């Protein structure tokens, strides 16, 4: 059917209102050989949306390596999983950007709830949360409000459900002023033999919905309802902001794990974006079966909900399970004990029809593959920008400032200052496995149960991204983000096993955004190949734009690494006086797109220096091995703010000064950045000198941070002043 013919179909305007294009509608009509009815169209509009179909990113994502020795579950499942010490470690990062911009507390809270359910769906017990946040500069009252409320929302959900929030990152940049980013990552552990898949199988098996009631909640549903021609007196039928109920999710968590433990489930899937529509269709597609769903059996929170509303509702804290008929009663009993609603809402059928029923009435009937697999995938039309895409930020740090003042200004800046006022709002210790809390080390360290050798192994987790460097060079910046995450793991003695990512970009139909996206994915792929680790899953969030254009290209990387012995780890700060301080790594710092450049009012553009990946990875290994052997007691990677800031941070944590002499004393040497490529380490002098590639530059101790050049120039800052600068930077905005 031509586009012209499609345009003359009666249903086309409605389809366009719901976000489909005319050719997409024509394709649907062709595939099902008729026009879809209201229920079917609502389902197509969601499943063929960018969010569910990945229509602008799927081809790009094929570049990512997805195989690995330790991989237990990969892309396509609710979350990925790798094997550590005989356990499955499941993890995934996901965005909740748009809802958070509307209502930051509930948006961030339900973002945490959503990613938790993805991990629970695997049958894993969530053990840790991390998050990556982006806001406009906190001098803007709106950004401060978003920060304050989003952090409170994240804490509210994670704290109440009893999962420790152990890490994260926050960055402020004007490009996020009207489009903040809230990415949440969850890590869980499971018995590898009990990992759940989401494929519906077994014709005749029952479909059980359990958890919260279904109401008219939902942002995704907004497009559907917005066009339902509601009169003024129908205000109560409008879609509503999703409210998180961590108490309900806690019960969903415990009940789900109990159901899996008792071997009562065939498959399990969370309800997230696009609600029942997406979870049911995906389960059917994965299993190559059909499903009948009777919406009359879905327990509702509100009266008079239409079938299509039930199918698109994004009410939180719900799960969908496939259960053998003989086990249904037992499933319902477990749910009842956890005070959860559970209903038998359908059946696995032969063939591939997704049928929606109201009692005996069929109100929707579409081939599953058409819904899930036949959405057109688009090729991007990338083009590098001819000039910088982003305006120069306002300068607030004069070029003439001396090294000392520059250091203090960087340390007390919102992007570098201590995150304590944020992370102390999170329970970091529940479940009694947090060996390294935020600010204690570069990655969070989580102990696992004692192994057969009597030793407690551990995992280390980290989340990172440096969008300004990505803006300057998408491939190089994304590669640096991967290396920085791996460097964080090396600092605590961990070896990377797998990576998850969240790709936050602007409108991919714009050539420059397409170029950013494709090249960022290339950088992530190159990093994974160099580290020898797979991408186990992730999420894509596109169309993040404000009136002034796209956000900075923001690939966020989450990584999990393994540690054979939880007790063999490091601290990010200096621990005692009189230890040797050394630098490790082939880092070649420059000021392009650095924090200092931003503070000086320079736009995020310029050439990033090329990097020698194998030398970088050799440095990671040297640090990791040194930490594991006990030679290195302090390890900190050199990232934002460069070497000067890294040394100050080592000093600030426990209030122990140092005296170092550097070969170069330029702004670039002191504050230039080359993420993931260099480390500050400290330990016993003889042991440190034996670390491959270590260049000893000084010793710890004293009440000052003293940095000198070989030619005699030097500056010195009292430890208390370093600490005050670092502690005050964010507190000023979160009183």
């Amino acid at each position: 059917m031509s586009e012209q013919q499609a345009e003359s179909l009666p249903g086309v305007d409605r389809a366009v209102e719901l976000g489909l294009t005319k050719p997409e509608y024509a394709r649907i009509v062709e595939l099902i050989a008729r026009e879809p009815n209201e229920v079917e169209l609502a389902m197509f509009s969601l499943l063929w949306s960018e969010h569910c179909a990945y229509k602008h990113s799927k081809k790009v994502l094929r570049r990512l390596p997805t195989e690995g020795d330790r991989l237990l579950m990969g892309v396509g499942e609710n979350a990925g999983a790798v094997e550590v010490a005989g356990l499955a470690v499941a993890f995934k990062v996901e965005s909740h950007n748009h809802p958070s911009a509307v209502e930051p507390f509930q948006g961030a809270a339900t973002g945490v709830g959503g990613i938790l359910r993805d991990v629970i769906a695997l049958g894993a017990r969530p053990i840790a949360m991390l998050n990556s946040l982006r806001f406009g500069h906190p001098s803007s009252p709106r950004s401060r409000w978003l920060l304050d409320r989003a952090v409170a929302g994240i804490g509210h959900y994670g704290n109440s459900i009893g999962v420790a929030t152990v890490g994260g990152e926050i960055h402020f940049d004007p490009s996020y002023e009207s489009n903040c980013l809230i990415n949440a990552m969850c890590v869980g552990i499971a018995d590898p033999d009990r990992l759940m898949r989401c494929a519906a199988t077994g014709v005749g098996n029952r479909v059980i919905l359990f958890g919260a009631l279904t109401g008219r909640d939902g942002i995704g549903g907004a497009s559907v309802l917005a066009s339902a021609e509601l009169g003024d007196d129908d205000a109560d039928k409008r879609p509503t902001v999703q409210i998180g109920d961590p108490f309900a999710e806690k019960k969903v968590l415990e009940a789900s794990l109990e159901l899996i433990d008792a071997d009562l489930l065939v498959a399990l899937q969370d309800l997230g974006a696009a609600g029942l529509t997406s979870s049911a269709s995906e389960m059917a597609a994965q299993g190559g079966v059909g499903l009948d769903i009777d919406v009359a059996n879905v327990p509702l929170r509100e009266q008079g909900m239409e079938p299509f509303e039930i199918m698109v509702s994004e009410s939180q804290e719900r799960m969908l399970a496939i259960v053998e008929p003989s086990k249904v009663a037992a499933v319902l009993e477990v749910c009842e004990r956890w005070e959860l609603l559970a209903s038998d809402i359908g059946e696995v059928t032969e063939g591939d029809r997704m049928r929606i029923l109201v009692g005996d009435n069929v109100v929707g009937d579409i081939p599953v593959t058409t819904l899930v697999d036949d959405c057109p995938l688009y090729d991007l039309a990338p083009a590098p920008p001819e000039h910088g895409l982003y305006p120069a930020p306002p300068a607030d740090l004069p070029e003439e400032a001396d090294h000392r003042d520059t250091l203090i200004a960087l340390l007390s800046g919102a992007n570098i200052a201590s995150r304590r006022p944020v992370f102390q709002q999170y329970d970091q210790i529940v479940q009694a496995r947090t060996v390294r809390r935020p600010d204690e080390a570069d990655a969070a360290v989580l102990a696992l149960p004692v192994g057969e050798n009597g030793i407690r192994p551990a995992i280390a987790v980290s989340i990172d991204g440096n969008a300004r460097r990505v803006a300057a060079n998408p491939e190089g910046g994304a590669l640096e983000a991967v290396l920085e995450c791996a460097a964080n793991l090396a600092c605590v003695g961990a070896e990377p096993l797998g990576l998850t990512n969240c790709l936050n970009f602007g409108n991919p139909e714009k050539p420059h955004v397409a170029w950013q996206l494709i090249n960022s994915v290339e950088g992530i792929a190159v990093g994974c190949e160099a580290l020898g680790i797979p991408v186990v899953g992730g999420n894509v969030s596109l169309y993040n734009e404000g009136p002034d254009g796209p956000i900075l290209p923001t690939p966020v990387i989450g990584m999990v690494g393994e540690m054979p012995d939880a007790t063999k780890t490091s601290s990010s700060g200096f621990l005692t006086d009189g230890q040797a301080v050394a630098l490790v790594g082939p880092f070649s710092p420059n000021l392009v797109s650095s924090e200092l450049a931003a503070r000086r009012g320079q736009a995020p553009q310029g050439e990033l220096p090329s990097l020698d990946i194998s030398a970088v990875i050799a440095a990671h290994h040297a640090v990791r091995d040194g930490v594991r052997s006990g030679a290195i007691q302090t390890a900190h990677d050199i990232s934002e703010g460069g070497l000067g800031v890294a040394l100050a941070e080592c000093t600030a944590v426990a209030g122990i000064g140092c005296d170092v002499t550097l070969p170069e004393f330029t702004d670039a040497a002191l504050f230039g950045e080359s993420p993931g490529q260099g480390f500050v380490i400290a330990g016993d002098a003889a042991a440190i000198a034996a670390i491959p590639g270590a260049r000893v530059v000084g010793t710890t101790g004293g009440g000052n941070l003293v940095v000198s050049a070989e030619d005699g120039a030097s500056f010195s800052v009292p430890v208390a002043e370093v600490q005050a600068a670092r502690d005050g930077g964010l507190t000023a905005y979160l009183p």
Partner: protein
Amino acid sequence: MKVLVLIRPKQGILDPQGQTVERALPALGFEGVTDVRIGRLVELEVTDPSKLDELCEQLLANTLIEDFEIQIQED
């Protein structure tokens, strides 16, 4: 004058507190209670009531998810 502002979750918006309390009541020995909704109560003294609506909209209530009702108590 003394003012009471009653802030309630909007119709259709999930009220996890109200739901949880309602579901717990029978077990606590309180039967026949339904439609429990839990909101907030703000009590204040104002000299000039003309700005009250604005105050509620901008600060006291989150109008995306809450409705408010102003009760002027006395002069």
